[in-house]
């Protein structure tokens, strides 16, 4: 199992400073939520963690190796990303799309084996799309496509799952089902899950660690119970909040 270690990380995009001197160790078995207002650079940070863009200062290590020293293929064997949107300009079936996740694990000139097909089918069953193999993805609704994209990530089966707004396009039931599944991946299979979320209360319920982006490089990271405090959250969202006492607690806008 693999940990993600951020050392003195500084990330900037245009004039926005996303984080400054950020030191965090994201360990296997943890489920992290990245929270922040629009435009504070949540996606940018997630892409930096995936090695998709270079950090301005500091490093991101996959265990003990800097991401910049690893090939994309090696990274993809251990770290997977659910992008914010998926594009399908060409026709493709649901099964073909899920099977893409096996790419980093198959030898360069190899073909997908029966085992790879079985993994893709199992992943589709996990997101409630069993038997949809031959459907064209272009005929699916936004939420169904999102679940296919998640099935691709589950087929890839990396140690580290980075998800950009995984609940986008999903109805309430599927939001809860998906986050339950991701939390399970962390708890039962010792995966590291890091997701950008917009819904504070879903984050409070499913993530055990949170990383808050306040903008202007200010950040706050730690276990849920420590970080999710009403004054801090009011500052985070620039919105007065009322805490509802439940387990875990929830927050309503005031």
């Amino acid at each position, binding site marked *: 199992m693999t940990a993600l270690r951020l050392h003195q990380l500084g990330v900037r995009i245009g004039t926005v400073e996303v984080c400054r001197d950020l030191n965090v160790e994201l360990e296997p078995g943890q489920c992290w939520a990245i929270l922040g207002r629009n435009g504070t650079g949540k996606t940018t940070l997630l892409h930096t963690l995936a090695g998709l863009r270079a950090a301005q200062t500091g490093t991101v290590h996959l265990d003990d190796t800097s991401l910049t020293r690893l090939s994309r*293929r090696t990274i993809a*064997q251990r770290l997977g990303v659910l992008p914010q949107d998926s594009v399908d300009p060409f026709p493709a079936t649901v099964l073909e799309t899920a099977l893409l996740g096996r*790419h980093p694990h198959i030898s360069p000139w190899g073909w997908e084996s029966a085992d790879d097909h079985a993994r893709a089918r199992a992943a589709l069953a996990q997101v409630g799309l069993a038997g949809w193999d031959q459907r064209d993805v272009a005929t699916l609704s936004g939420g169904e496509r999102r679940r296919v994209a998640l099935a691709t990530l589950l087929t890839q089966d990396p140690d580290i799952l980075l998800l950009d707004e995984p609940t986008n396009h999903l109805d309430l039931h599927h939001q809860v089902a998906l986050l339950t599944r991701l939390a399970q991946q962390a708890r039962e299979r010792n995966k590291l899950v890091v997701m950008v979320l917009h819904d504070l209360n879903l984050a409070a319920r499913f993530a055990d660690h949170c990383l808050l982006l306040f903008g202007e490089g200010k950040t706050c990271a730690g276990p849920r119970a420590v970080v999710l405090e009403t004054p801090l959250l009011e500052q985070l969202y620039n919105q007065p909040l009322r805490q509802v006492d439940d387990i875990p607690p929830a927050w309503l806008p005031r």
Partner: protein
Amino acid sequence: MRKPAHLLGVLLVLSISAVAGALFIGSVTLPAGDILAALTGTGQEPSRSIVLELRLPRAVAAFCVGALLALAGALLQVLLRNPLADPYVLGTSGGAAVGALLAMLLGLSGLGSSVGAFGGALLSTVLVFGLARGGGDWSPTRLLLTGIIMASAWGAFIAFILTIAPEHNLRGMLFWLMGDILPGDLPWPALMVLLGLLILSWLIARPLNLLARGELQATTLGVAVTPLRYALYGLAALATATAVTLAGAVGFVGLVVPHLIRLAGGRDHRILLPASVLAGGTLLTVADVLARTLWAPHRLPVGILTAAIGIPLFLFLLLRQRRIAPI
């Protein structure tokens, strides 16, 4: 897995039949025995020269041109992530046309215009590559825009050459622009180029499946996107340059053949690329036979025939697809 293999088998049979048909059909009717004898090296004149020096090189040239254009189209559609891309969007055919027409204007013919066309195609390729990369960023949109602008520039240049060209050159130039298989000694090198490019592109076929889903998705699934895109660009440019050198700007094959194959179920690029090669070759071989026989002894530009065959075929598959699963 069974269905795509089936598709390749059918296309292989079609390709062989098309080339065989091209050997049989012509202004002189030859018995099958004479054709076989000529192919096995025991033939007698004049059927030997008709088969080996006229019909076979022409059939091979037609097959190669169709195959190269279809391959280039399939590659560029992924590179630009645009289903409407064809081998000419990057201005390659425009550059080739200017080179060939300039050679004709200078009174060079045959090999001269071929050299001109190949040089023009490569020049255009390098120009578009350099201009699109200018700022270091190399997005599909930027590449597409640069290619389209370059194509318009070549278009204006072509119009200028046609305006100043003397009357006796015009017909040859127009045929070149409409796409026409030129007799010559080039089909065998072209066949080598085709085989080489097909093998090279087949080696990168699986990553292409990922790149078709966007750069981000491909990168996160372990594809080194930048070298892959350079390779794609180079392979497609070389295929297009070879095809236009052989036959001028034959339209339509490069755009439509990859879509035909996708509609027939060949969506995986490991199937799509060889299937496009076979289907593109077949389409152009058949079109060329029709071009030289339909209105004999006159010859029609083959580009007209590729459209006449390909468009109904494409519409048929598109409509059938809609009934099964609406796109």
